[in-house]
């Protein structure tokens, strides 16, 4: 299981999405809360400035500019944090009172509000502090600016934003790690299920998933799959039984019919006799198909080869090639046998002969006149022998390789052009499986290459 496969898994993606959406919504919620609180704070701040201005206005009205001066100077001795800053100027712009030296570069806001930055000495350091200010006419050419810094608010803001950001990062990282871990565990369960299912595909429909090894909902899934498998196995067996029964039961009346046709033909002459010949050979074809079908199914249901006979392949393959030499010569097909030293394989001599006879028969049948068919045998270390039958015919497209092993399946292009009932390779497959061997089809570039691996007696698994 690679990291990539975990990240790609459904569980991880689901959790990742969830984490992202969750942190985004938490962020939005907190941001909205912050905006609301800041707005409240600024409202309060500006109201306090307006109040202070009103105070100044009242003092000016009562005690003129000297009173204002007195008041401002009193205020300046108050603790620095949270207090007001003042600048009272006369008509010529000269400062009369206050601790702001002059009007700094400011930004003009709505409703006569100003904003500026000022370097203040704080804890022995000059710090740029944001101010909110409002100028007012006191009367008699006097102007008063009342300002108040909002460093606290910005500090709070940046603190909140930093905290939010860190919390989000932490949430995402923790969420992803959690997601990764839970995806890994889910994935390993799913992977085990996959492995078991692949094993079933290879091993045959009678196999089942080991339910006891699964937990939770995967176990439930495994149970459902098992009942599904049981169902399809039953259906499959039903279909096989039905087709075998059909073949078995139809053989009797068909043979009877064929014999009656024979008797009829004995007394006929000319065209009728010829027509009867055709019908009889049709009957023979059908009977041949039935026999092949029954043969395959008895191979498939009869268990695996358990005898201890050993078949030397050199003699067997030489016999097959010798048997086919006249036919190959007639078609001008070069039929050659390349025999490396290889061990005798475990199996039934007649069945193995039939296996290679079918393969060579097919190879020659589908190879155009003047082509070549090569039978090659070599040792397969640790297993037994590998026999390859390659032809120079049209081959079989890779996507059809699985299909041609099915009963009655014939490549569309070979229907009508080559005789046969579409059981040859099925029989080959059945014989190979019966011997615990492996059959595979490949491209011979050009042509079809059939590879048969057969075990020797000593390497046969129990």
């Amino acid at each position: 299981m690679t990291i990539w496969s975990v990240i790609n898994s459904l569980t991880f993606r689901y959790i990742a999405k969830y984490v992202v959406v969750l942190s985004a919504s938490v962020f939005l919620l907190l941001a909205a809360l912050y905006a609301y609180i800041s707005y409240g704070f600024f409202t309060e701040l500006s109201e306090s400035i307006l109040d202070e201005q009103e105070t100044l206005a009242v003092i000016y009205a009562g005690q003129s500019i000297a009173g204002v001066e007195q008041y401002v100077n009193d205020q300046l001795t108050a603790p620095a944090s949270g207090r007001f800053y003042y600048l009272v100027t006369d008509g010529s712009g000269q400062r009369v009172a206050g601790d702001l030296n002059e009007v700094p570069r400011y930004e003009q806001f709505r409703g006569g509000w100003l904003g500026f930055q000022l370097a203040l000495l704080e804890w022995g350091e000059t710090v740029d502090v944001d101010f909110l200010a409002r100028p007012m006419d006191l009367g008699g050419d006097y102007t008063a600016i009342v300002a108040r810094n909002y460093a606290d608010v910005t500090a709070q803001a940046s603190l909140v934003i930093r905290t939010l950001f860190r919390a989000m990062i932490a949430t995402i990282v923790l969420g992803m790690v959690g997601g990764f871990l839970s995806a890994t565990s889910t994935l390993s369960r799913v992977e085990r299920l996959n492995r078991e299912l692949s094993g079933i595909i290879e091993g045959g429909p009678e196999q089942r998933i080991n339910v006891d090894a699964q937990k939770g909902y995967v176990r439930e899934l495994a149970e459902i799959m098992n009942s599904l498998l049981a169902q399809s196995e039953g259906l499959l067996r039903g279909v096989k039984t039905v087709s075998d029964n059909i073949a078995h039961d139809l053989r009797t009346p068909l043979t009877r019919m064929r014999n009656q046709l024979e008797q009829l033909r004995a007394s006929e002459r000319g065209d009728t006799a010829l027509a009867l010949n055709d019908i009889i050979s049709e009957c023979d074809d059908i009977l041949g198909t039935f026999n092949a079908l029954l043969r395959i199914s008895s191979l498939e249901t009869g268990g695996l080869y358990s005898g201890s006979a050993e078949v030397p392949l050199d003699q067997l393959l030489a016999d097959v090639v010798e048997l086919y030499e006249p036919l190959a010569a007639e078609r001008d097909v070069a039929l050659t046998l390349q025999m490396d030293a290889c061990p005798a394989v475990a199996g039934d001599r007649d069945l193995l002969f039939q296996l290679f006879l079918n393969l060579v028969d097919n190879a020659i049948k589908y190879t155009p006149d003047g082509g070549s068919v090569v039978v090659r045998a070599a040792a397969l270390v640790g297993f037994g022998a590998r026999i390859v039958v390659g032809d120079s015919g049209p081959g079989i497209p890779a996507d059809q390789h699985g299909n041609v092993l099915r009963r009655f399946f014939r490549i569309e292009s070979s229907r009508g052009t080559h005789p046969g009932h579409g059981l040859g390779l099925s029989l080959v497959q059945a014989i190979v499986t019966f011997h615990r061997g492996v059959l595979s089809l490949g491209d011979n570039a050009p042509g079809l290459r059939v590879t048969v691996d057969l075990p020797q007696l000593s390497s046969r698994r129990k």
Partner: protein
Amino acid sequence: MHVLLVEDDETVGRFIVEQLQQAGHECTWKVDGVSGLAAARSDSFDVIVVDRMLPGTDGLTLLATLRNAGLTTPVLVLSALGEVSDRVEGLQSGADDYLVKPFSIDELLARLDVLFRRVASESSAAQTELTVADLRIDLLSREVTRAGQPISVQPREFKLLEYLMRHAGQIVTRAMLLEHVWGYHFDPQTNVIDVHISRLRQKIDKGFPEPLLETVRGAGYRLGDAPVDAQPGTSTDSVSQ
């Protein structure tokens, strides 16, 4: 001929009986080893057909008992494919032929015919020369002549010809040829044997007015004329290729 069939499978049994009777043979059918053994001892049959797997006494035990009792009637053993590798065991128990299910009824009929006739020709087994019409082969020098003219054949063709001549006038199936000439036992279901036959025919029949080697449609081949007592079920028709 009179055939004893010992077969427990009802469908197969009824089928064989029916086909044997249609081919003009007499057939007695027993469904288990014990009654089969009793029948074989009490009556005289030309050929016995025994299924390998039987309830009670199995086919091979029955066969061994018969042989121990000195009965020499030819026996053909039928077997399902699962027991295919036990063929040698079957023949060692005294079977004269062995046929794996499923088989075609022609195959069974041809084999029974051969078994039946072999008894008659047993006495001439030691001959060194075989003759069919003007075709003659010498088993020692391995020379083939027709009407005195020498014909050169390859070793396999000689074997093929020898088998055909030993069963002159009888139908031999492709499976029987594959079995006795090549040494493998199954129904090839392909035309590969036909090519060998037509090669042989080229050598022994070409240039002679009377063809000897016939293809018996749907069944197999026959060298020489059919005997006058040919059965209706194995009616023949020569088709020259």
